[in-house]
């Protein structure tokens, strides 16, 4: 597909005898919000780790923006334009929020080591540009209050937002969000939903996310892929997937089907 930003085909990852991911294939169109759902242990985060090149797949191919992703080293993924958040927040604890976001800008670095060592005007200009872009993200996500706070002292809900901010600071084309609303209360989840639609409409970033909160999924997603035990079981719009029999069975068991029929 010509407007597919990301494509995966036959993706598999075996840990010994365990098939964490087995023959998963899907494509994400540019500008859409694509969600992966499935019960715990379905392999959703594993797919993310495969895309981020933290894991090497046992089989299958992945293409991003026309490039073969398997040929890319883990630390080059960000410069291609893929950013991700982590399920169990991996922020830099001993740094301020601002420092965390500035680190996110790393791939846009234009200075050499020598320039940094001497802090030439070019290095200074580079730093100002970093700050300018990071401030845009801070304003977008309302983090100004926490700008100079150490991450270690922040409440969970704020950390989730900082994690998102750091991913946005990379300036990505594709944003991988791993359970963005887990641990958030109703208001915070509402906020997250608004931000996601803003990311799509205002920033034009494609979003691929893993989510459990079905109402959030229904509200923001364009398409949904359901996984169970490492395999794809359904693909379509949120309404289609949520009423798909295989999906209901995966989440609720066959008794639910009997209730439905009755």
């Amino acid at each position: 597909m010509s407007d597919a930003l990301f494509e995966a085909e036959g993706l598999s990852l075996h840990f010994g005898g365990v098939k964490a991911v087995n023959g998963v294939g899907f494509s994400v169109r540019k500008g859409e919000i694509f969600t992966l759902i499935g019960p715990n242990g379905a392999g959703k985060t594993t797919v993310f780790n495969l895309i981020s090149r933290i894991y090497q797949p046992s089989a299958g191919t992945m293409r991003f923006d026309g490039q073969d992703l398997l040929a890319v080293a883990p630390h080059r993924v960000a410069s291609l334009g893929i950013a991700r958040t982590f399920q169990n927040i991996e922020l830099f604890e001993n740094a301020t929020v601002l420092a965390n976001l500035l680190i996110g800008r790393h791939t846009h670095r234009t200075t050499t080591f020598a320039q940094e060592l001497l802090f030439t005007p070019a290095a200074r200009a580079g730093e100002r540009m970093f700050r300018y872009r990071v401030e845009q993200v801070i304003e977008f996500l309302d983090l100004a209050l926490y700008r100079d706070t150490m991450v270690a002292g922040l409440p969970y809900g704020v950390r989730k937002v900082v994690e998102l901010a750091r991913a946005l600071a990379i300036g990505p084309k594709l944003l991988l969000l791993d359970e963005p609303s887990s641990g958030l209360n109703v208001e915070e989840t509402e906020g997250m939903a608004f931000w996601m639609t803003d990311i799509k409409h205002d920033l034009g970033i494609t979003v691929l996310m893993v989510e459990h909160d079905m109402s959030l999924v229904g509200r923001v997603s364009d398409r949904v892929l359901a996984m169970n035990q490492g395999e794809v079981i359904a693909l379509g719009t949120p309404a289609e997937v949520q009423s798909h029999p295989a999906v209901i069975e995966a989440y609720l068991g066959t008794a639910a089907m009997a209730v439905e029929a009755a």
Partner: protein
Amino acid sequence: MRFIFKTHYDQDLVLFKHAGARWSYGALALILLLAPWLLSEYLLSQLAFICIYGIIGLGLMLLSGYTGQVSLGHAAFLAVGAYTHALLVGAGWPFVLSLAVAGTLSAAAGVIVGLPALRVKGIYLAIATMAFGFIVEEILARWESVTGGNSGKQVGPPEFFGYKLVSTAEFYYLCLVIAVLATLGVLNLLRSPTGRAWVAIRDSEVSAQSMGISLARYKTIAFAVSAFLAGIAGALYAHKLRFLSPDQFTIIQSIELLLMIVIGGLGSVHGAFFGAAFLISLPQAIVWLRDYLPDSVANATGLQPTVFGLILIVFILYEPFGIYGRWFKLRTYFQLFPFYRRGLFRRQRAFQKSERLK
């Protein structure tokens, strides 16, 4: 605590954040420049030592404090720099060139020692660096044709275009200039993407990689810069002592360097110099202490390590941020007087996180 009303990004970038800082560092600079007239010759030579150890401390702080790579064999870099420089100036090379080569060779050694860092972490890396330290020490002792082996090597005073820096004051200025340049270089690196990349590696390697930071590259740079600084300091060290022998660069020295930065305050540039000052003044303090202790205790050779160890334990138990931490709290106390509360810096109850799963 001062609240600075910022209106421009540059205010975050500059080294001296407000006028008060400029005044106090300016005063410090003045005192340091006038030191030969203010201090006795002995104290001046100790100050030169503090500068030298401060430079090593900067390097080690960068590697272990900011990048989180423990180096238990740092004395090896000191040795490489010291011996290289001694050999080159002994062969008639100009001082600056020899210094540069000594630093570069040390940096190369740093890259080699840093290779295990690309594969292993934590205690494994510490032991690998310790192993390198031992091997270098043994090479120094055995390679007698070059290093003079265990009988040691003489070194002359530093020489610029035929002018020998023989006096204490001249040597002190040399050390001061190099220390200041090294500090500025390190501060510049820390406020730029490289420095932030280092901190990222320390806090979460997986995350750093997903931000586009090449772990291999930045760890190697950290080792190289750190070793370069140790190499340069080693060259100055060689001139200061006028005599080099392998037993000046053992594991004990490496451990003392680590102790220096921990007591000084891990994770701060000030800490390197506070630690150096502590390390140099400790023997003096013990000499002074001897007058107040009973004879048997005072004259024992074991007094210094015991005191050193006790102070280290006390600091980690009660002031993990080191001397710089104490200094910072003291300053905050006076700035906030009388509103200072102990709870300002109270640490949260922490539970041990498994470092293997970092």
